[in-house]
């Protein structure tokens, strides 16, 4: 294995060697390497197979523009589809190429190259149509495509050694990019005392200065970079992040920054959400390739990438190079390679004549003006470049193992365009540059088409000086470089035969774009979608403009008229973990608990989610009971002696004001304003379209004071509903709504012996049925605690809901358990509560109530007030009722076999046959009063079908059941009124 590392130079630390594995083989690199530079240093040329044709590919770029070498990281770094040029090398890292098996050298999928001519753009969509694309898609996706998501870690693997974080930040000036323009801008804004946020995607500051040999103020440019970074570090008003990619520019100057290696070792990645006053985009420019046959062979590389490899990583990407360019910048790259010991055989320049400014840079390298590369020798590695004049004359082959090309520079306008700024085609630069900004941002340096070092420093300083209203600083002198370009969108010399790639990642060739145009996909967005050119992980950073140029040439229109496709976030791939941060489980969305939770847990309660992040006990398993035995025991306690239920999570709102009664009449279907203080009433709330929003109880506390309770899960929705009406429809009504859900906790003592327990607790409230009948409440004391006792019942039994302040809840609960012990009291969980309400036919939102039923369907026509002229939803219910549609109505079902349980949600069909359903089972429980399974169901015309036998259709059986009233216990409600 040949070592291509230079003896000195570069930004690597030769004292820190790192071992890594690639496709199963061991290699060595240094700290400061990327996976790509370490592979090149180890002379690994063939690093990938292409997406569709499985063509051999090598490393093309040096940064996030890399289209070819995608790898899957294994082990603790597990991550799919990473560009090798952006993977910071770490000791022990293991990576493998995507889309080849078993290796890029011996790729069995490569047979598809034989059929390459048969699979042009759109081939899959056209060919695999019958009987359906879905039949073929899985196999095609396996053969062509990228890596899958990493496997889940094995169960015995150690926990991941870190977590993600998402944080918010504010900045007066956000500077994107720490190249010369960005550093200069950050210095000026920082010196002016502004809050500056500087983020750069590379592991160290300097931008293009890292890749080139430039001078600032007569010294190596990186000395100026180091001094600038030190000055920024000394400013407390500057936040400076490296290895932090600004990947999204959203509305209202909101930008996302993905910090890939935060200083905190317990953190994997951090996502900053930055709201910026002004944004300075110093994102630089990206070199694009030239389009010639076989421009994807391993060893064909961007000129700027080769320059970066020799200068930044001290790696010779080859021994003998040919450089192919249409602009001046590749000459500087060639000179750097030559200085590093790479033999540069020739510079092939498509321009005729070649400008003197360029020739001056060549430094003795032969320059072939007016010439183009018409082909590449070598399949798995470049062996030579076929060159001719543009008219095809003088064809010859130059031996080389490295073919560098440069099609010019494209400003990285991605973020500017994401911010909805418009782009303009610049003829002299042959590229799109920022035009009109749509948000408070300004592009500087390479990102604005200012490609020289001097103008980068100047525009960076100017932008910051303008934003901060400060003087322009004195700018240091720089080594000058010229830039001139004559566009060459594709090589079309006679003799240029073979696939010329526009998008290397997606295997899109010039022919594919021509085909798309011939087939009528003329808009650049359509071309993108039909050919997939510009999609994928690199989003066409090196190829998009060549696609636009190809379209323009073919259609004979200016590039400005073709335009660009829409730039969307992310600029570079971002892991989902970083976007989510630690928004997991209980960290950001904590559970809500009542003061009794610990008591419940201590007694082995199995906790349930009760909606709106509340957790409440589902059931209290005791001894070796089965689940059903537990539920039955809790139910029997309530039906036969006494139980206690923690109702604290119920939503509670206090309404005050002289119009509160009038308002409640408007939001409830029934009349509330006729209640007298001390009375309460069950009520139903609808939305304006007539559907059921919630049910609950309204209590009149005083003349102008009410307390409204709602279901646990819908408390927020009801609150929003009431506030919206009050603030938008009735702003002149005097009603104030206050949330008191957490100000009142309650324990409901329910069962025939409830009054006994209340007496044992001790209370100064007269609980006799005469003084405190059903649907009344009274304030006083219970067990010495200030309390409000409410006679409501969700179980159908005699119930006292004891409301106390949360600080008293735990005491109250324990005293109830103590006082109730002689009566056989049991704590009741959600499961038993569900059984008890089904036995009574009380509705439950989410079970019997969905987006189709109204109160009439539920047999609750009585709750739809006829006395009130109007209330929310009234008109809509009436309108719907006038239709002829068959309604599904609530019924009770008794399975023919009392031991047959029916799954909730099971459909009812005529005769149990495979026919359209006529209803569904909404709940089915084992009734302790009837000693059998009972169910509630919504059934077409159910109210008039009592006594009929209907059939539940299950997967392997049908269950016959008798239709009846949806109430199985105490139909007259005598027990809860006792």
């Amino acid at each position, binding site marked *: 294995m040949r070592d291509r590392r230079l003896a000195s130079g570069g930004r690597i630390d030769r004292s820190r060697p790192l071992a890594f594995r690639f496709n199963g083989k061991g290699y060595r690199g240094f700290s400061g390497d990327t996976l790509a530079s370490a592979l090149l240093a180890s002379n690994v040329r063939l690093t990938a197979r292409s997406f569709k044709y499985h063509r051999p590919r090598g490393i093309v770029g040096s940064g996030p523009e890399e289209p070819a070498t995608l790898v899957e990281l294994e082990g603790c770094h597990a991550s799919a589809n990473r560009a090798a040029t952006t993977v910071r090398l770490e000791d022990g890292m293991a990576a493998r190429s995507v889309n080849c098996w078993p290796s890029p050298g011996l790729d069995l999928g490569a047979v598809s190259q034989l059929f390459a001519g048969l699979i042009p753009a759109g081939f899959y969509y056209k060919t695999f149509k019958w009987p359906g694309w879905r039949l073929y898609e899985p196999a095609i996706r396996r053969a062509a495509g990228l890596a899958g998501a990493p496997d889940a870690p094995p169960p015995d693997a150690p926990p991941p050694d870190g977590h993600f974080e998402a944080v918010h930040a504010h900045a007066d000036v956000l500077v994107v990019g720490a190249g010369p323009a960005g550093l200069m801008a950050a210095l000026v804004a920082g010196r002016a005392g502004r809050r500056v946020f500087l983020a750069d995607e590379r592991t160290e500051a300097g931008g293009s200065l890292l890749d080139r040999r430039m001078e600032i103020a007569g010294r190596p440019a990186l000395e100026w970079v180091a001094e600038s970074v030190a000055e920024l570090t000394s400013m407390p008003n500057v936040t400076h992040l490296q290895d932090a990619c600004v990947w999204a520019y959203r*509305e209202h100057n909101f930008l996302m920054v993905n910090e890939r290696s935060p200083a905190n070792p317990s953190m994997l990645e951090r996502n900053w959400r930055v709201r910026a006053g002004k944004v300075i985009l110093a994102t630089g420019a990206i070199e694009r390739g030239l389009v010639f046959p076989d421009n994807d062979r391993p060893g064909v590389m961007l000129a700027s990438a080769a320059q970066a490899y020799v200068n930044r990583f001290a790696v010779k990407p080859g021994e003998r190079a040919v450089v192919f360019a249409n602009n001046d910048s590749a000459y500087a790259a060639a000179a750097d390679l030559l200085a590093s010991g790479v033999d540069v055989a020739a510079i092939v320049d498509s321009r005729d004549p070649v400008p003197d400014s360029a020739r001056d840079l060549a430094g003795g390298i032969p320059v072939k003006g007016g010439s183009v590369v018409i082909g590449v020798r070598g399949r798995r590695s470049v062996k030579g470049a076929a060159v001719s004049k543009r008219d095809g004359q003088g064809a010859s082959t130059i031996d080389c193992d490295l073919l560098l090309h440069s099609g010019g520079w494209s400003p990285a306008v991605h973020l500017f365009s994401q911010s909805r700024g418009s782009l303009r085609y610049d003829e002299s630069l042959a590229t799109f540059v920022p035009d009109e900004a*749509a948000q408070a941002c300004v592009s500087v340096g390479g990102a604005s088409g200012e490609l020289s070092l001097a103008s980068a420093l100047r525009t960076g300083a100017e932008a910051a000086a303008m934003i901060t209203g400060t003087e322009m600083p004195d700018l240091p002198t720089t080594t000058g470089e010229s830039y001139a370009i004559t566009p060459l969108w594709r090589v079309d010399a006679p003799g240029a035969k073979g696939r010329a790639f526009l998008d290397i990642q997606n295997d899109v060739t010039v022919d594919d774009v021509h085909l798309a145009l011939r087939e009528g996909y003329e808009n650049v967005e359509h071309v993108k979608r039909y050919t997939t050119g510009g999609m994928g992980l690199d989003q066409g950073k090196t190829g998009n403009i060549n696609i636009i140029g190809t379209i323009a040439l073919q259609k004979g229109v200016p590039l400005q008229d073709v335009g660009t496709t829409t730039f969307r976030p992310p600029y570079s791939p971002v892991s989902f973990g970083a976007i989510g941060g630690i928004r997991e489980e209980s960290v950001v969305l904590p559970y809500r608990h009542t003061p009794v939770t610990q008591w419940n847990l201590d007694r082995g309660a199995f906790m349930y989610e009760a909606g709106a992040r509340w957790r409440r006990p589902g059931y209290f398993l005791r001894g070796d009971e089965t689940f059903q035995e537990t539920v039955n025991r809790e139910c029997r306690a309530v039906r036969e002696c006494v139980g206690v239920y923690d109702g604290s999570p119920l939503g509670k709102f206090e309404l005050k004001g002289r119009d509160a009664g009038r308002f409640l009449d408007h939001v409830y279907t029934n009349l509330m304003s006729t209640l007298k203080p001390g009375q309460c009433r069950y009520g139903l709330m609808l939305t304006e379209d007539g559907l059921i929003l919630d049910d609950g109880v309204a209590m009149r506390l005083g003349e102008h004071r009410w307390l409204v309770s709602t279901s646990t899960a819908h408390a927020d929705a009801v609150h929003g509903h009431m506030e919206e009406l009050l603030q*938008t429809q009735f702003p002149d009504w005097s009603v104030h709504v206050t949330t008191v859900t957490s100000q009142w906790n309650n324990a409901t003592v329910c069962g025939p012996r409830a009054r006994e327990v209340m007496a044992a607790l001790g209370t100064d409230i007269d609980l006799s049925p005469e003084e405190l009948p059903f649907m009344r409440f009274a304030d006083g004391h219970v067990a010495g605690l200030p309390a409000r006792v409410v006679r409501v019942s969700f179980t159908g039994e005699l119930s006292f809901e004891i409301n106390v302040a949360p600080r008293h809840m735990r005491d109250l609960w324990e005293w109830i358990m103590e006082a109730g012990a002689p009566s056989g009291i049991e704590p009741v969980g959600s499961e038993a509560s569900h059984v008890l309400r089904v036995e009574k036919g009380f509705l439950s939102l989410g079970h019997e109530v969905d987006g189709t039923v109204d109160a009439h369907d539920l047999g609750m026509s009585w709750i739809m007030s006829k006395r009130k002229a109007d209330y929310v939803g009234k008109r809509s219910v009436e309108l719907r009722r006038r239709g002829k549609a068959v309604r599904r109505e609530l019924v009770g079902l008794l399975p023919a076999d009392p031991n047959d349980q029916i799954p909730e949600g099971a459909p009812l069909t005529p005769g149990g046959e495979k026919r359209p359903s006529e209803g569904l089972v909404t709940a089915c429980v084992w009734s302790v009063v009837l000693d059998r399974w009972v169910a509630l169901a919504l059934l077409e015309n159910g109210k008039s079908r009592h006594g009929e036998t209907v059939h539940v259709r299950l997967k392997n059986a049908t269950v016959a059941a008798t239709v009846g009233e949806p109430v199985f216990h105490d139909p007259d409600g005598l027990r809860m009124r006792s």
Partner: protein
Amino acid sequence: MMLIPCPFCGHRNESEFAYGGPVKPDRPDPHAASDEDWVDWLTTVPNPLGPVEERWWHVKGCGTWLTIWRDTRTHCVVEGSGDAG
């Protein structure tokens, strides 16, 4: 994420608000409106390409239901219906 101007709290992140939808015309008199007018009011929501008057609830803030004009093309919060470019 948008910045939404709350009359009491100033400009706040969109994540503090719940969307209340475009502002509909005033609720018609349910006794006077025809079936068509009622259904139209109930179901037809303004959906212009350009400035739209809409409501937001500052639910994680002061609790205000507020009204803004937002340009659906740009997310710019504009002063009135005619100001958007």
